[in-house]
């Protein structure tokens, strides 16, 4: 990670959402950078190994393995990887399982405008 720049990997099967998140990060500008995108859990693990982002913004419901399963694989390889679970339906069970796996934060898709803030917070700690 370059000093002052937070590299982010956006993982979501919805192309609209990936584009929206990328646009919001670009608008926030200050020190945030998108280093990669993935449309599935498998692709996320693969891209993550290449891009080595500071933070992974991870959707839960995706084709193939779920976001939680992808998070498990990533954290197994790198336990201190910052991961934010970004879901449209954050129920208590999902939050509990995310905490158990080692996910740093959970963000509801309704709060998409708080993504820059969440990224900074994760990268700063």
């Amino acid at each position, binding site marked *: 990670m370059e000093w002052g720049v937070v590299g982010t990997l956006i993982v979501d*099967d*919805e192309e*609209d*959402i990936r*584009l*929206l998140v990328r*646009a*919001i990060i670009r*608008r926030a500008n200050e020190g945030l950078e998108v280093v990669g995108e993935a449309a599935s859990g498998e692709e996320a693990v693969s891209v993550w190994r290449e891009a080595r982002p500071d933070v992974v913004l991870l959707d839960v*419901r*995706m*084709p*193939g393995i*779920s976001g939680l399963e992808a998070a498990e694989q990533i954290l197994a390889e790198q336990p201190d990887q910052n991961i934010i679970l970004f879901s*449209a*339906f954050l*129920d208590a069970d999902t939050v509990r399982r995310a905490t158990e796996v080692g996910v740093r934060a959970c963000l*509801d*898709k*309704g709060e*998409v*405008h708080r993504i820059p803030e969440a990224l900074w917070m994760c990268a700063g700690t």
Partner: protein
Amino acid sequence: MRGDLKPRQRWAPAALAGILVLTGIIAFAASRRSGQNNRRLLADATAAASAQTVEALVHAQQAELITAGAMLNGHLPTSDGQARSDLRSLTEATPTATVGVAIAGSDGSLRFRPLLGPGVASPPLDLTASSNWKLALALARDGGTARTAESAGPDGRPVVLVALPLYSSAADTVSSRRADLTGYLVELLSPDVLAAPSFKGSAEDVGARLLDGTTSLASSPGAEGGPVPNSAAVVPLADPALNWRVAAWPRPTKSLIPWYFLLGGLVVAAIVWLVTAAELRASGRAETRALTQARDLQLIARVGPLLQRSLDVGEVLPVFATELSDELDLTSVAISRVGPGGQFVTVFSHGAPVIAPDRAEYLEVTPAVVAAGATVTLALQRAGRAIGALTIRARRGLEHSQVEALRGVTDLLSASLGNARIFQEEQEMVGRLRDLDRMKTTFLGSVSHELRTTVTAIKGFANLLAMPGLDLTDKERVDYLERIDRNAGSLSVLIDDLLDFARLERQSLTVTPQPVSLSQLVPNVVDQTSSILTDHPLEVDVAPGVVAQADPSAVERILVNLLSNAAKYTPPGTPVSVRLRREGTKAVLVVRDHGAGIPVEDRERIFDRFYRVDSPTTRSKRGVGIGLALVLELVGLLDGTITVDDGEGGGAAFTIVLPLAGTDSGTASATQLLST
């Protein structure tokens, strides 16, 4: 039979009859013994009485002779005629006696000349030939009195002599008596005559005999032959001149009394035997019945709990069949249930295979008894309806009671299988309800996800567009607007689906069938839906003049849903085609995509509410699982059909068939509609 119940012993009548027979024998023996004792006493008395009677008779004869002698005044009769006249009184007393006189001869002999009685014609007899008589005559002469002596007569048979000396003067000394003796008045008697009065009245049960030493003089009737028993009572006569004895002994009784006792005992014993044996037989039969019933109850009591042990038929039936086989000695047990087609389907069999009727209608009436090695099938019934059958083969056959027990067990088995079936149905119902609950949970998650994602995109892009400081190109602005539009379209479809679904749940989803020109409606709907199909080339092939009897809103909802699904579940860039044709009296609308297609096993269930094909490509795709359920419902309301199969070149092809509005009054309206 495992029970320890046994019929009780039936020795009682035999024992009782035996006791009675024994009692009869004892009574018989006692009676006999008592009679014997009585006869012995009677023999003693007979002996004593007879001795006295004989003696008295002899004395009487002597007295008669003395009386006769006194009448003769000591002189011998001078003529036979006088003698017969004087001595007649003697023979009147003893008619069988021979009475006569004895006169001393010059040679010292004493010649007896019979005058009266049976021996009157006999030749003269020398009385001195017998030493006994000679002695008695001498003693009588010297004593001046009558004397009696016994000796063998001329014919060898014993004869009793009674003699009274007669003197010419009143001699009173021995010498004068010897000098003055003129002769003797003599009476010869058979001993029978002397004994007859006493023996005549003796009882039949007693034998009596008059003896001189060991010589038998006379015998009672029936006691003539054979020796005198050693046990006989012997009484000697008191007169020393008569060295006689009377012997008497009991003879075998002819009394029937002991036999009455014996016979009575036997008869009573026989009656008791018959009565008690009959009673015992009756009670034995009752006991056997009770034992049989108890055995049957034991069978039911053992099998009943087995069947209730579990509602799992697979667990219960083997134990049940084994127990039943052991109890009734069966070589085969087969249990079947009524299958969907009404035929029996074997669910469990034990032992050798058996052939049984395969439908309830072919079952015969259960016989009262089952022959050895025979096969019997009993219907398993529940509420009067056959639910299966129990087939058994009995190695040694079954008695009536066992068949009854088998019926009882069959009823229990019916109840058990019925309960198991109900339990299974309930389990399946619970499973379905759980599936439904899981699908509803998934549905809620899907709806939330769908709404959130769509709204997030709309709101997010709208915010970006509205943000003053953001530097956007025109292309980007157009792209954002298109994305907002597409998501709004998806949201609209979703909301329409949800509303229709709510109507469906309330059963208030209705259509208003009317002639609809599908040739016009279909291209319009495809046009309106283009915003959600931007990633897919559209191929529309619509035949002209296809007018269906349908509801335009319903057709639009059907088509939009199918196109929306094609957009969601097929890769971008793959074409989606819509084709409308008229085939006979039907309008055929086909929506085909080039996606992964729908697996055969899912083709029925995709129309179920909340059902979504679970595959890696669809797991998170947007959609809530109610679109096709709505489509099916709407097609049904329009009297149409919908099927899905493989499209040409892969993908899925949904075919909707609707009735044409040309068959009756609809034709005119359709023509009118087209012309306008």
